[in-house]
């Protein structure tokens, strides 16, 4: 495996471990390292037990690892719970006041009370971890200021006290120097979705708060004034989706973001988008269900739901980014697909990817083509009909108030000019017209990407956020001289089997890796192309898939 260092920060909610995590992550990225952040937190404001794990490496990395090299424990419980995760040579950093059995691991007992205000243990810990990793003090301080503002003067002192003290201990766990590279930014999946959507022409977003979807909206809101976006917190998810559809109908490219339970309320809006042929992007950040489930954990359990939500028959596309880079590109692509097909396009993400900060090359807004519905409005014509029958199924979309064409959209079955009809011959033709748009989505479908051996003995098939874990598991197999590869679907609907079935059929063993219990994607593949995999790796305990987890399961299944 790669030479990487994993820092596990554990403590109660409210102790400031997110601050430490953010400072360290940012300093690592600015120093030129790659990172993968995993956040595991309980659904509460104070207390409980949370972790922020950052894995860092001088070479590219794609997944979290289960083992930790540095454990920053805010309380004894964090030592007790995570000491089993420590790799050989692991280091524990804890407040000297806390009592815990360090089982022979190197333990830095921090005299927090003598180094400064004990309440600032988190910032001292950032200084200590920074020193252990060999990060620059000045850079850490800059990151601290950006995180907490200039007001906390004692912050800088606590940070310096921590790093000085740590250096004096002589303990170190420094990373190899990073290779000189282009500067990177630190971004998580949801921030990348927001940036991609803005680059793609987004003008309107509405939402009702629900973890882990909300942070897409927080990211949009932080730039809304500058980018001229309207972002509105609606009274409920039903309002959110109907608001976005109203905005889109009136010419503003629009999206909503939610999680499974909120999406359940939006289902009627999905169907409305299908019937009124209104473009909309719906981001579903999955968390474990059913019902309220585990609000702050991760799962890929809503594929079937999102694929089938909404009554009636109409085309849709489901995108499933596997990294922040894909989040950026696919958010913009989703807006374009929605516009091209005049209907709903979904982005399936999950808590792991939503919260997972990575180091990425700065996104280039110029690399995506934004949508401008106003520019493709048809010229004024007598008897303009919003739902004119066309060969492609796509009717020229006029916008209300831009020209003399009157735009009439209806949730009832309608005539070409948008008025209610119960003419059953028209009904049948409208169904066919709407479904013809599926061809556009099939034509634009993103093929799954194969990484690794083109003629593998073991092919790990995955979708969405499990890309990194599957990829690193396959790399580990390759390093053991097993011909292995990963096939990642960043689009899970529609599926175009010609693009991947030959690979599935020639691979000796195909294992589908996904974060749900019932193998939803495995079943979808079987339904769409009759392919039955040799085994499945599934995870549904609320934690993200890791390379280690996949490798263990492969052994249990007798695959390796």
């Amino acid at each position, binding site marked *: 495996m790669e030479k990487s260092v994993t820092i596990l920060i554990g403590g109660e909610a409210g102790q400031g471990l997110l601050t430490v995590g953010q400072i360290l992550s940012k300093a690592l*990225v*600015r120093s030129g390292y790659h990172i993968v952040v995993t956040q595991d937190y309980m659904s509460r404001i104070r207390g409980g037990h949370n972790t922020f794990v950052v894995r860092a490496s001088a070479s590219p990395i794609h997944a979290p690892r289960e083992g930790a090299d540095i454990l920053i424990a805010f309380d004894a419980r964090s030592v007790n719970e995570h000491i089993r995760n420590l790799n050989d040579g692991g280091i524990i950093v804890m407040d000297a006041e806390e009592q815990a059995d360090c089982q022979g691991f190197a333990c830095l007992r921090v005299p927090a009370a003598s180094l400064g205000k004990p309440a600032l243990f988190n910032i001292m810990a950032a200084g200590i971890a920074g020193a252990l990793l060999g990060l620059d003090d000045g850079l850490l301080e800059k990151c601290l200021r950006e995180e907490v503002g200039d007001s906390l003067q004692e912050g800088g002192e606590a940070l310096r006290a921590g790093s000085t003290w740590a250096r004096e201990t002589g303990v170190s766990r420094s990373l190899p120097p990073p290779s000189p590279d282009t500067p*990177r*930014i*630190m*971004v998580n999946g949801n921030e990348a979705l927001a*940036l991609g959507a*803005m*680059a*793609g*022409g987004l*003008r*309107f977003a*509405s939402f009702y708060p629900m973890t882990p979807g909300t942070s897409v909206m927080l990211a949009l809101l932080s*730039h809304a*004034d*500058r*980018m*001229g976006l*309207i972002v509105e917190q*609606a*009274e409920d998810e*039903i*309002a*959110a989706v*109907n*608001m*976005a*559809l*109203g*905005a*889109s*109908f*009136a*010419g*503003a490219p*629009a999206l909503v973001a939610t999680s499974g339970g909120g999406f359940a309320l939006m289902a*009627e*809006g999905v169907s409305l988008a299908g019937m*009124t042929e209104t473009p909309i992007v719906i981001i579903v950040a999955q968390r474990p269900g059913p019902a309220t489930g585990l609000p702050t954990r991760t799962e890929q359990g809503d594929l079937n739901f999102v694929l089938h939500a909404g009554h009636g028959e109409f085309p849709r596309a489901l995108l499933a980014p596997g990294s922040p880079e894909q989040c950026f590109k696919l958010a913009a692509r989703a807006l374009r697909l929605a516009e091209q097909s005049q209907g709903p396009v979904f982005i399936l993400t999950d808590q792991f990817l939503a919260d997972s900060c990575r180091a990425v090359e*700065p996104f280039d*807004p*110029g690399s995506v083509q*934004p949508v401008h*519905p106003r520019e493709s409005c048809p010229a004024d014509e007598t008897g303009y009909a919003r739902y004119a029958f066309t060969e492609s199924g796509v009717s020229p979309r006029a*916008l*209300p*108030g*831009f020209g*003399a*064409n*009157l*735009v*009439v*959209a*209806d*949730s*009832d079955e309608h005539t070409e000019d948008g*008025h*209610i009809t119960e003419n059953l011959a028209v009904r049948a033709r409208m169904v066919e017209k709407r479904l013809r748009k599926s061809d556009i989505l099939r034509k634009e479908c993103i093929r799954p990407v194969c990484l690794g051996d083109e003629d593998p003995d073991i092919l790990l098939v995955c979708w969405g956020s499990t890309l990194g874990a599957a990829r690193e598991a396959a790399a580990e197999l390759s390093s053991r001289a097993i011909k292995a590869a990963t096939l990642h679907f960043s689009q899970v609907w529609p599926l175009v089997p010609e693009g991947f079935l030959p690979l599935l059929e020639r691979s000796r063993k195909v294992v589908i890796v996904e974060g749900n219990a019932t193998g939803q994607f495995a079943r979808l593949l079987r339904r769409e192309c009759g392919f039955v995999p040799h085994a499945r790796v599934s995870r549904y305990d609320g934690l993200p898939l890791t390379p280690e987890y996949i490798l263990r399961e492969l052994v249990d299944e007798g695959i390796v």
Partner: protein
Amino acid sequence: MVCIEDFGTFETAWCPGCGNFAILEAMKKALVASGLAPRDVLFVSGIGQAAKAPHYLNANVFNGLHGRALPAATGAKLANPRLTVIAESGDGCTYGEGGNHFLAAVRRNINLTLVVHDNQVYGLTKGQASPTSEQGFVTKTQPHGVFSAPFNPVAVAVAMHAGFVARGFSGEIEALAGLIAQGIAHPGFALVDVLQPCVSFNKVNTFSWYRKRCAPLPPEYDPTDWDAAVHTAAEWGERIPVGVIYRNDRPCFESHFPVLDTRPPAYGSVDRDALREIIKAMG
């Protein structure tokens, strides 16, 4: 000049004698009086017999889902505030299925006009009680009479300091047209709750029942007096006041978004340079 013929005449799906005909007529008159051409106006409706009304005149129309006229109208207005947006639906759609949206729209004070065809009964689904049905009102689905107390939309809107609150009667087309035109002119959320008979399913609150009770507000009535409006809005019995019950000059929702004046979402385009700077700053 806009004239009433610009809005056309259409065959409807309504019962002969339905109050909807008069409301449609009043709506066209209000649009003409407001100098609005079909292309300037967007009607957003829900589902029900009333929600079909926008199909029977020339205009832009988004006939969405049951209960959801207001959120869709809100989104459309925020996307393009240069449109005159009128939400139109029945009492079941607006106050039942869409009750939460009604409260939120009043709170937002977004500049749109909500015209509610209020006949105190469900028509399209054939005669069930609506949120405004009176207690004891017997239907096939409420065989022992309605147990719940009726919702008074006008009183609720006044209590919440809605921007403009009016009650009209379909039997007074000219007066109703005047109320709708005032609602359109009001720079904020405007509710026009219109009492109308349902000839098929409401045999209690008939045309003559309303005719006998609906009384215009006296000329000295001051709709800016909230305390008086609370009292007037609650009046419901032998006398039902009609007219502008309450109005205020709360700033409308749109006024909080400077971009809506300069570059509304439907007009805007991506500022790539600004976005590049935002991304760069994340480094």
